[in-house]
């Protein structure tokens, strides 16, 4: 019998308990994330994996624990007399209330010891469990702290309990359960987070693709997104408006805007592209027709600042001005027209598809 003066310290069980806690947390996190991610990205295998994984783990968990359970079940419980040192009703709103008993257990063979147990007792039967009363208890010999009061003892034990007088055991002789391994909850939570994060990271590309695919061009209703720029896309045109402090004369901005418009699907064909300081609009060429069009990515965006500057020649440098660049390929060859308006008037020029100036009109 294991009688000690304090909780038994966790020994070799510690690494196993921690590993089991981590594994359990990982399986829970992975399966939950697989269910959610599988549902979002509409992946049936991932969703099924989220269902199968905990089932398989649960089965393995049960199988792994079966030898221990069989070993414990094979132990013949021991019956003994015990005296109630104290009792405390610890709550409950039903007719069976949990009661905490402080008992001195007096086995037939072996020293008496103290133990604290909590057991449900019907309120009608509470008077049967007064302090200093003798009761019959049962416990597995290898786990003396797992004491259970026998509410209906056999006639033989009933007679023994009725005639017994037991002395309280010293406080030092106390049977207590081994202490719980510390940190199991923490590693379980860690495993849960890692498992969930692993699934999300593995499928992050699908998730982000899903986000983008959630904004396809629609013939009936334009879709609008709002970040640092605003995009309005329909089946006939697309417009990307930049936020404050940004300009389409900045390097890379036109390409980013066209990337945004192209995410709805496939290559872009444009009839007309209109670019202003913070607005880029594309009129799409009708799909499946032979209408003339051009690839808006092929425009010489790196030449735009120079073309705008050149068009503004003759206008006051410091005066506020606006500009608009229109590219169209309706006549077959690509023509870029730049118009700059200032306080003094409007100036314009025309350039070819490579950004070479072919005609200039001074301010009027």
């Amino acid at each position: 019998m294991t009688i000690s003066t304090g909780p038994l310290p966790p020994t070799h069980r510690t690494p196993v308990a921690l590993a089991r806690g981590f594994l359990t947390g990982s399986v829970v996190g992975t399966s939950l994330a697989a269910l959610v991610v599988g549902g979002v990205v509409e992946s049936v295998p991932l969703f099924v994996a989220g269902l199968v994984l905990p089932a398989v783990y649960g089965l393995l968990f049960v199988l792994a624990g079966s030898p221990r359970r069989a070993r414990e079940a094979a132990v013949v419980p021991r019956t003994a007399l015990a005296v109630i040192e104290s009792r405390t009703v610890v709550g409950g709103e039903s007719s069976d209330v949990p009661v905490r008993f402080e008992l001195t257990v007096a086995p037939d063979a072996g020293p008496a010891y103290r133990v604290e147990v909590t057991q449900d007792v019907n309120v009608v039967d509470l008077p049967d469990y007064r302090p200093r009363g003798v009761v019959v208890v049962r416990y597995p010999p290898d786990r003396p702290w797992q004491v259970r009061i026998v509410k209906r003892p056999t006639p033989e034990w009933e007679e023994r309990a009725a005639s017994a007088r037991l002395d309280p055991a010293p406080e030092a002789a106390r049977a207590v359960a081994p202490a719980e391994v510390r940190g199991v909850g923490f590693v379980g939570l860690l495993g849960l987070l890692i498992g969930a994060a692993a699934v999300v990271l593995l499928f992050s590309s699908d998730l982000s693709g899903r986000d983008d695919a959630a904004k396809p061009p629609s013939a009936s209703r334009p879709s609008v997104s709002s970040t640092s720029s605003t995009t309005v896309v329909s089946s006939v045109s697309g417009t990307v408006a930049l936020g404050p402090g940004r300009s389409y004369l900045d390097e890379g901005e036109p390409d980013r805007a066209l990337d945004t418009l192209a995410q709805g699907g496939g290559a872009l064909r444009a009839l007309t592209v209109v670019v202003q300081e913070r607005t880029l609009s594309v009129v799409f060429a009708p799909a499946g027709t032979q209408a003339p069009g051009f690839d808006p990515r092929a425009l010489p965006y790196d030449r735009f600042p120079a073309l705008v500057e050149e068009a503004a020649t003759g206008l006051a440098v410091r005066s506020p001005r606006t500009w608009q660049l229109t590219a169209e390929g309706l006549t077959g060859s690509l023509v870029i027209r730049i118009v700059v308006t200032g306080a003094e008037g409007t100036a314009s020029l025309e350039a070819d598809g490579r950004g070479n100036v072919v005609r200039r009109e001074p301010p009027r």
Partner: protein
Amino acid sequence: MGLHGYLVLWCGVFGALALVGYGRSLAGMTRAQRTVRAKGRIERVDVPRHGSSPREGISVVVSFQDPATGQEFTVTNDGECGDLIDVAWTGREIGVHYPPGRPHAFRFAGHRAEGGRGLAWPTFALFLVYAGPVAVAAIERGWPWALVGFCGPWALSGLYHLPGNMRDRNRRLDELAGMACVPGRVVAVLKSVSTDDDGHTSTRLVPVVTFTTLDGRAVTAYCESGLPDPAGSRGLDVPVHYAPEDPAVFTLDVGSMRRSWQWDKAVNVVGVLIVAAAAVVGAVML
């Protein structure tokens, strides 16, 4: 992996489980086959305390002999001990089951049946194997396949068992006609109050009736039906009708029980007809 891939996986897993289960049964290794089934005898019956819990059954002392060792055991129904003992009298025979070599892990069984061969789980696995293709057929070819696939075998099984069920119900009706009537008394009303997570309280009242049969057996039994006011029934004298060959079959209201069995017969027939009709509708709609 497409739908058929999942179907193959489903059938493979549950087919393997079914095979393992049937194999274990053939080898005599299932829990049901290995369980030791001893015959217990009730040596003492205690009348329950008024107001106490009905969950633990009538307090009895039972003795049984381990067939393997011949050792005698005297036990009580304290705690989780299998079937609830709700009818008891001194001398009543009761089933005591336990794993081989572990009589301390006994469980009471209200019936003295020999027990099955442990085929319930393998058969359930086999049903799942069958249900997989039926479900896929219903998805791919239309809902009539579900009706035919599920209701067809169900209807055949119902038709096969219907005569036996009818004979059983008729036997019970005959049993009612042959019941003896003796005076009984409600000696206690057991009470169980439970509160669910939402704070709702539910109360279960179980009157306990005692009566002595014509051949002198003092029976103590739970009696949850037949009393109009269970809460105030303590001390009430009631006529008890019981089957002379088995006092565990008793009632306070023969007429009500007769109507109940007749209803049961009708429900059996109507249920089989509905399931058969569903299968026929499915077959016509194919």
